[in-house]
Structure formats: structure tokens, C-alpha cells
């Protein structure tokens, strides 16, 4: 496997959906290619950092306006039935 192929298979490899023979080839390449190892490692960290980041909070005023709008829609809907 060459460096270009590693990049093409990177997403499948990180998602754990690469078939086993391809995964073994890829990992053999990583064992001897520092550049690819860094790319794989930093791409994996990119995903993890976003995954572990603080979720955007739902502000209370935004939530209250949402539920008021829904309540209004429920009421309007029940009148038309």
C-alpha cells in the first residue's frame, strides 16, 4: 500500500469499516511511514476533539420561545379539528 491509498482509505480505517486484509496492509504501511502515521493520528484526534467538545447549550429563552410557538400551534390545530 502507498501513501495515497492510505489517505483514500483513511475514513473507512478510522470508522473501523475497512476489511481486515486492507487494514493489515494499511497498518504495515503506518509502521514504516512516519508522515502517514502523523496524518492518521492527527485526523483521529480531530474527530475526537470535536466529539468531546462542549455541546452548544440551548439557552432558556430560546427553549421557552420554541415551546410557546409549539403550544400556539397545538392550540390552533385543536381548534381546526
Amino acid at each position, binding site marked *: 500500500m502507498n*501513501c495515497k491509498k492510505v*489517505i483514500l482509505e483513511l475514513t473507512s480505517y478510522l470508522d473501523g469499516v475497512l476489511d481486515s486484509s486492507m487494514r493489515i496492509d494499511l497498518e504495515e504501511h503506518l509502521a514504516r511511514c512516519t508522515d502517514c502515521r502523523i496524518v492518521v493520528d492527527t485526523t483521529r484526534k480531530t474527530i475526537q*476533539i470535536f466529539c*468531546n467538545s462542549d*455541546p452548544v447549550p440551548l439557552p432558556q429563552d430560546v427553549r421557552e420561545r420554541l415551546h410557546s410557538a409549539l403550544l400556539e400551534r*397545538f392550540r390552533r390545530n385543536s381548534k381546526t379539528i
Partner: protein
Amino acid sequence: MVLCQISADGRIPPPLGAPRRLSATDPKPLTSTVVRDDESALVSAAKAGDAAAFEELVNRYERKIFRLTMNITQNREDAEDSMQEAFLKSFTNLDRFQGDSRFYTWLVRIAVNEALMKLRKRRPNQVSLDEPLNDKDGEDSVFREIVDWGPSPEKKFAQTELNEILNSVIGELDPIFRVVFLLRDVEGVSTEETAQILDISVAAVKSRLLRARLKLRQKLNKYFRRSEAQ
């Protein structure tokens, strides 16, 4: 290999003590007899006119939908409008939901469309879900800059600063890539569901996800570069 710790059913548990009020003027929460964990039963009840069941669905997904619309639009007002419109439209059009997909997938599809519409209004010439013709930052550019980050690069920053960096780099990403990355890697939606939501092929999702991940990694290089002391 599981990279993200978001649960498979896409749920974020509400924070302890989170208010369940329906509105400031109507503090009494609706109560449904439907078991909370059963999404399809909640949808069926809501279809039959049980407003409380629909409210349960809203309670379940409002945080995730707001996070998604906020991340797509990068603007609080647009995020709120898109979220509200998505829930109102899903309620109004509930009869059209056939149950071929999860309710959440259907809701996300509506929310993504609403958020992209808002984005198009603000940046009319910049938002397209078509493949860019001249994308020079794809796979070929990966080896232009090889930067080692060290073991825990995010720990170099305080949480607030880190959040600002992540918001900034995701905001720089072309919407075509941003949406795929958000659905797959932040919201934990499957490749197949992402394809369904965006009405594109599974191959296109995979290709865009690869490019999104590589672009974000490249943008983060300047912040997470391993220092001499590491």
C-alpha cells in the same frame, strides 16, 4: 472502532434539573401516557393528536437540533429560527412521515434544510451542496504540511478558548463539507442516514467526510502543533 462517545440512538441526556416548562405563561408540563423511550409509539400517538407525545419528542431532540442548526448557520438568531421552523414543520407534516426512517432522521433532514436556507439568505453565492469544481484542498494537499500534535493537543487551551477555535475552524469549512462532518462525526448519524438526509449517494458522503476531516485537521495544525517543550 468507536471514535465518538455519542450514543447510538442519538440521544443526549438532558442536564440534571433541566426545566420541562412548556412556556413562561404555561408552566404545567403536558403529560403523555406513552412510554418515553419508545420513539415510534410517541410518533404514532403524536399523529393521533397527542400533543404531549409530540412534546416528548421535542424535549428529546431540541438540544441536538439547536446544536446542529447553530453549527451550520454559525448565527444564534438563524439557529433558533431554523430549529423552531423544523419542529413546527415536523408537527404540521407529521401525517406525511411514513416511518421509513427514524423520526430523528426525518427531523434532522428538515432542520438541515431550514439551516441551509438561512445560510443561503446570508451568503447567497457561497452555499451550494454541489461538488466544488476546483477543490485544491483535498486529498492531494495532505502531505504539504506534516505537523505532529503530541498526545493531548487540546489541553494546551482553556475550554472556552478551545470552543472558540473549534467554532472558528468549522465555520471556515465549506457548507458542503461542514454539514457532512457535523452529521457524521458530531451528531453520530450513520453514513446511510446522512446520504438520505442530504439526498446524495453513500459514496458522496464518504468522499465529503474524508475531505472535511482532512481540511479540519489541516486548519487545526496551527493551533495544535507540538511545541519544543513537549
